[in-house]
């Protein structure tokens, strides 16, 4: 009984060659080529040491240059069920009859790492099939021009409200708003310094801060460099509904530039925010909060 169990254990230990990095091709140095006579290749060698089998081969490549191929195999022992262990002792047959133990590089290779890409089917549904080309097509539906008076999809000169009171009052501010809007929303080229969010230099304010006189906008300055929109949102949402948040950021680093504009829905909320937040300590700095000034004419 004991003997047969020993035999079983012996069966269960066998060699599996599992890891097989891609063959390293090392060009032999010129010194080697001088030493070894042309035509005589060094004999292939096989070294097995501390769990690694290193096979070295020499051959001529297509340019008739000598190439040294080193393959490293990791030898692993695994305990498996008896039937599998027994099958592992089978000798090779058919076209593999001549193969040595271990994988034959002619039939078995290790390819590049491939990882599973996790996707959600919603993403998949939204992704157009040939998205690369779609971006190049001109937009067909969106209208490029707009009436300055009523924002309709017709030229200003053919506006139905041309001679009405509306036109008179709206003309000035609408023109400005439309201009700002056009700069940010149409497909036209816009110089980098004109784009929304870009710094406009001293004396100017970012386009996010532009508004009519009745807008309840406040300017918060002396913010920490590390402030993000979420912090700002936390700071002001207690005062009332916020229409818009603008946090000035350094374009290259994405860090806060130290000031922000907040548009409240109601002027009263804005006033309350100024009253409370001005001089409020926030992230080791003392905030300076004031009414946002109208853009300077330049």
């Amino acid at each position: 009984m004991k003997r047969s169990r020993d035999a079983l254990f012996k069966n269960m230990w066998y060699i599996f060659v599992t890891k097989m990095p891609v063959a390293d091709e090392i060009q032999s140095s010129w010194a080697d080529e001088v030493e070894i006579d042309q035509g005589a290749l060094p004999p292939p060698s096989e070294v097995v040491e501390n769990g690694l089998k290193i096979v070295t081969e020499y051959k001529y490549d297509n340019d008739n240059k000598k190439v040294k191929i080193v393959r490293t195999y990791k030898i692993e022992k695994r305990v498996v069920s008896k039937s599998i262990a027994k099958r592992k002792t089978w000798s090779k047959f058919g076209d593999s009859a001549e193969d040595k133990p271990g994988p034959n590089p002619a039939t078995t290779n290790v390819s590049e790492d491939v990882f599973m890409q996790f996707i959600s089917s919603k993403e998949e549904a939204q992704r157009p099939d040939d998205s690369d080309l779609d971006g190049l097509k001109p937009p067909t539906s969106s209208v490029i021009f707009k009436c300055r008076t009523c924002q309709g999809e017709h030229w200003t000169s053919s506006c139905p409200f041309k001679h009405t009171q509306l036109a008179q009052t709206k003309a000035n501010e609408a023109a400005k708003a439309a201009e700002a809007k056009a700069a940010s929303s149409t497909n036209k080229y816009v110089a980098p310094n004109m784009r929304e969010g870009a710094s406009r230099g001293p004396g100017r304010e970012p386009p996010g801060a532009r508004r009519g006189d009745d807008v309840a906008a406040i300017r918060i300055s002396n913010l920490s460099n590390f402030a993000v929109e979420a912090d700002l949102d936390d700071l002001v949402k207690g005062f009332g509904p916020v229409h818009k948040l603008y946090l000035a950021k350094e374009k290259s680093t994405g860090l806060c530039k130290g000031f922000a504009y907040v548009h409240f829905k109601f002027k009263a909320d804005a006033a309350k925010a100024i009253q409370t937040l001005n001089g409020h300590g926030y992230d080791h700095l003392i905030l300076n909060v004031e009414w946002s000034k109208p853009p300077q004419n330049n």
Partner: protein
Amino acid sequence: MKPLMLQGHERAITQIKYNREGDLLFSAAKDSKPNVWWSLNGERLGTFNGHGGVVWCLDVDWQSIHLITGGGDSSCRLWDLETGKNIATIKTNSSVRTCNFSYSAYQAAYTTDKAMGHPCEVFIIDTRTIDDSISSASSILKWEITDSKVTSMIWGTLDETIITGHEAGDLIQWDLRTGKKIHSIKEHSRQINDMQLSRDGTMFITASKDQTAKLFDTSSLELLKEYKTERPVNSAALSPILDHVVLGGGQDAMEVTTTSTRQGKFDARFFHLVFEEEFGRVKGHFGPINSLAFHPDGRSYASGGEDGYVRVQSFDQAYFDYTFDYNRD
């Protein structure tokens, strides 16, 4: 994990299968020599030389003693797995499209194509003793398929039925005592390329050219789930340990060169069994995947493609850590 690339075939892979314990991986291709590999390290154990043409199908019995293959040379062959010897050859009238051992391996079934003036036929043979006598012995049961030909076949529960998938998309369950139809359904609109049983045999998944894979109950042929893609599905497999399904396919081999859509669509796609939603993809093949198989331990899978390669891909930990997002309400 780096996949193993098995380059034993010169032409497109037609079918790959693991044995029951998963230590051996079999591959058949449109060249004449089926191969067998050790799945762990990709070492080739041998080739089965003897067929004179395409090998369409293969199957191994549960004890890993015999292999059955069927091919375009109008023969169905039985092989000894240990030595690779061709024990028996059954001559048929037309090429053999599908062949499978029953679970007990007491019987095997194979189907022939409708070709060369011969009809599509289903044969059940006795495989309790496999030797030369099988070549001359008549089959236990055979019947003709009059409408569209059989393109895939599996054994049902308890070796009492077989289920055939047809070129027109029909699924038919046959009673082997009488050779009569028990159930016949048509859930697919085009050819059924592949059918694979779940681990316990209660469900099976079909892969069809109509760009879907569907999950059916094995005994009632009730449609349970549907997995939709935008390309013909050549093969589908069910994970033995997780609620996952892997689909493989791609454009038809002959259409690949004439269509100019972006490269790809040859990846293996993983769907959730229950939610029917795709959650992952694995790239690798340069052509459509023709056959897929999960390792019985569920920790790796193999795919055989039109490019002639078999790729054995072990799953990373990320695959096992992945949980499918859903609303628990």
